[in-house]
């Protein structure tokens, strides 16, 4: 089975059937026994093909059904694509990966990513502010979804409901203000959750409820000023949690009673009064691989917490 890898697409290209293919202008083509690759790095696409639109100098015409039905990957980063018609991927029965990083998509309509058996969908760095709940099919097998660097104000619960095979979810660099209760319940296989650089401020006790397969949680730069002490309970495979660059002043007892090898805590305004004792004990007795420092009181500023004495924290011996 020959498969096509198309990395970017030239303007005004019409693909004939494979037997008659000559390499499009300004592209490089590689033919081998296993693959055919068409590489067109100088593309400047501004619109997807509509139904039966003729090619002209500003729009791309590709007859997917005729020639590209064996397409497995579509890489279109760094173009100016701003809209995507419904049923775009009709007939692409082998397409598993789409990269649309750095385009200008704003709204994702219904059905646009139906028809193809997508596993990897990367929509990083667009301007997406709304996603229709039917943008992906109910039986979607997507494992990697990247929506980072967009304008999402709310965690897209309805839009992600059917993604029962999701393993990696990127929502970094959006405008999320909270992680709703049970936001990951629909994804029991989820391993990685990147939600850094949002405005979350606080987590619900059940934000990560039941996600026993989570290995990595990235929460840096989310303006967290507190953590519920049981928020990481039950996450038996958690290897790495990044809580750096937040507004945490202390951690309630029990927060880090988890079997996690690395919890990153630097760049928080840790207040090294008596309340810091739990964190101090954790840092001195276990290896959390992190060296957070005090911000207050003034006389302990910039001291590594693990080097404090009980007396310095105002604790009895």
């Amino acid at each position: 089975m020959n498969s096509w890898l198309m990395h970017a697409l030239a303007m005004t290209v019409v693909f004939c059937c494979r037997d008659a293919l000559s390499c499009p202008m300004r592209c490089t083509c590689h033919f081998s026994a296993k693959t055919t690759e068409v590489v067109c790095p100088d593309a400047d696409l501004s619109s997807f093909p509509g139904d039966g639109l003729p090619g002209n100098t500003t729009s791309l015409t590709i007859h997917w059904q005729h020639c590209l039905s064996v397409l497995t990957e579509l890489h279109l980063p760094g173009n100016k694509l701003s809209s995507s018609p419904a049923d775009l991927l009709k007939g692409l029965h082998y397409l598993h990966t789409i990269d649309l990083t750095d385009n200008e998509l704003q709204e994702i309509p219904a059905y646009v990513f139906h028809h193809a058996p997508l596993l990897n969908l990367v929509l990083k760095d667009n301007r997406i502010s709304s996603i229709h709940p039917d943008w992906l099919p109910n039986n979607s097998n997507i494992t990697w979804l990247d929506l980072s660097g967009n304008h999402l104000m709310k965690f897209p619960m309805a839009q992600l409901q059917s993604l029962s095979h999701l393993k990696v979810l990127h929502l970094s660099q959006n405008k999320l203000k909270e992680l709703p209760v049970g936001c990951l319940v629909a994804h029991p296989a989820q391993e990685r959750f990147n939600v850094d650089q949002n405005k979350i401020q606080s987590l619900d006790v059940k934000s990560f409820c039941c996600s026993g397969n989570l290995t990595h949680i990235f929460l840096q730069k989310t303006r967290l000023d507190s953590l519920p002490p049981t928020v990481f309970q039950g996450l038996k495979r958690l290897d790495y949690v990044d809580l750096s660059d937040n507004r945490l002043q202390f951690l309630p007892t029990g927060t880090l009673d988890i079997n996690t090898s690395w919890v990153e805590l630097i760049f928080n305004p840790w207040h090294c009064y008596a309340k810091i004792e739990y964190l101090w004990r954790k840092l001195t007795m276990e290896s959390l691989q992190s060296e957070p420092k005090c911000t207050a009181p003034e006389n302990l500023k910039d001291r590594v917490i693990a080097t404090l004495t009980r007396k310095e924290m105002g604790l009895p011996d």
Partner: protein
Amino acid sequence: CKKHSGSEKMKIFIQKCSQCHTAEAGGKHKVGPSLNGFFGRLTGQAPAYLYTQENVEKGVVWKEDILMEYLENPKRYIPGTMMIFAGIRKNEERVNLIAYLKKSTSST
């Protein structure tokens, strides 16, 4: 120049690379190839991984200066790459990541 501890450098790898790559000896291929042994090797040579033709034909040896250019914008350096990664803009971050890669992928 800020001095970064070993773990600071490893953090960059964890955040930006470990979803798709392993570095250690015996590490498996994931979405991307295992990086073990790649330093000082020609592009596209990890055994049993299907690279694109352009990656294999790039024909350069991976080392610090090449990686500085590649990791800033992988698609610019190897236009036919399938690697979905926008790149790392900050010089210092790349320097630190490359130092970590050099060390961690040379383990046998």
